[in-house]
């Protein structure tokens, strides 16, 4: 579209000395010319004009505004300095498309001068912001030698009071599943539960009698069922710690068997005693991607809520001392 230059009076009628009514567009101005003027900044949106303001001059190169830098405006002001005359009832945000301030002449659209008040634009890509390189968010962990006993492939070990800890290797901690199953006599049954805390410090509980998998049922890390507890080790880095509890009023004796994918087997002898509803059996802590398993052999029992609280799982909520709110 070309702009006609043989009808200058039409362009001048865009900003008449006496503003027309806000709702009535100029009758003689072609719609295309008015829109082009509005988009090029030579006019304002109808209805935005302030009758109390004096008419602004046409954007000519002649210097009609003071040469001194005006007060700082908004941080996204891409134009030149604003007029020195303050707008009476407007805050003057630079994102207002209907601003009464005319666009700066082409000579002032080069590099805007810094505001005298020291205000800098948030989009300024130059300056001191790039002087300091951002620190990496990846921090290399210091490796520690815990000097705890390990277990080899297909080894079988009984975890007792004098030898209750096993430090799995990185491979044993990250491949397959860790199975925790009770081996009981005929006719005996033992419900297991698993309380876990993820790496983002979210605590949750998985019970075979309540919710069989968790913490997220769509991508479960822990499954509980009639065969015991299974921990998916592919997502070991998402775990922080785990507590396996027996949820029963009476421990039936037998053995708790913990098996890795490589066939390592750890056995914990279960007592045949009454409980107050739950008893901690096994804890696991993830230290630098490796699992540290511990047979708790806890002489104390309590309600499920008390047992969870005794092992630091205090962010869980409960319907009653035996039923978590999941």
């Amino acid at each position, binding site marked *: 579209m070309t702009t006609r230059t043989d009808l200058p009076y039409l362009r001048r009628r865009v900003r008449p000395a006496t503003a027309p009514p806000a709702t009535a567009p100029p009758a003689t101005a072609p719609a295309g010319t008015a829109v082009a003027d509005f988009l090029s900044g030579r006019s304002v949106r109808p209805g935005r004009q302030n009758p109390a303001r004096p008419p602004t001059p046409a954007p000519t190169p002649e210097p009609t505004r003071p040469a001194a830098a005006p007060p700082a405006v908004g941080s996204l002001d891409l134009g030149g300095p604003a007029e020195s005359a303050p707008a009476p009832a407007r805050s003057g945000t630079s994102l207002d498309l209907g601003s009464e301030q005319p666009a700066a002449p082409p000579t002032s659209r080069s590099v805007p001068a810094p505001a005298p008040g020291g205000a800098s634009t948030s989009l300024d890509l130059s300056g001191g912001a790039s002087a300091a390189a951002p620190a990496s968010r990846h921090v290399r962990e210091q490796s520690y030698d*815990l000097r705890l006993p390990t277990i080899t492939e297909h080894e079988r070990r009984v975890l007792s*009071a004098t030898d209750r800890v096993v430090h799995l290797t990185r491979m044993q901690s990250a491949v397959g599943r860790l199975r925790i199953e009770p081996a009981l006599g005929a006719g005996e049954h033992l419900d297991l539960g698993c309380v876990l805390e993820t790496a983002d410090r979210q605590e949750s509980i998985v019970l075979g009698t309540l919710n069989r998998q968790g913490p997220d049922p769509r991508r479960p890390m822990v499954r509980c069922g009639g065969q015991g507890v299974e921990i998916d080790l592919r997502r070991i880095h998402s775990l922080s710690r785990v507590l396996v509890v027996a949820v029963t009023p009476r421990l039936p004796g037998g053995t708790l068997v913990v098996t890795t994918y490589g066939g390592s087997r750890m056995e914990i002898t279960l007592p045949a005693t009454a409980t107050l509803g739950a008893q901690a059996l096994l804890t696991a802590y993830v230290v630098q991607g490796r699992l540290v398993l511990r047979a708790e052999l806890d002489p104390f029992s309590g309600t499920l809520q008390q047992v969870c609280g005794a092992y630091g799982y205090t962010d869980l909520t409960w319907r009653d001392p035996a039923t978590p709110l999941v």
Partner: protein
Amino acid sequence: MSALRKQTQALVLEINASAGDLPPIAVVLARAVTDTVASVLDSPEVDRLDIGVRVAVHAVLTDYVPGSIRSYIGAVRAAGDPAVHAATAAVVDQLTTLRASVGDLAAASNERDLQALQVHGRFLEDKFGGSELDL
């Protein structure tokens, strides 16, 4: 010895209850200290322990390990996440030192080296025990 065993049990309860506020490696190291102390207290020669060793074990159970744990929790709660990395390194160093000292005690106990026990017990008392000049 029953008092030391009760103190060991109390420290285990405190470590477990604080596990939600501690890094996993700190829990593992602190429990390793209690395991080592328990092995010393469960040895058949426990009644022949030197008084210096008993004092050192008592201090580890009631002061040194709980002090490290409580200081870590307090530091992280006060300074927030930016202090976690430095606080974790500090508490791991402290617990590693304590574990090594208690491990030396246990090793000496197993070898029935009473002289080494006495020397190490005095060392621990001098190293970690309260000084008369402390306020």
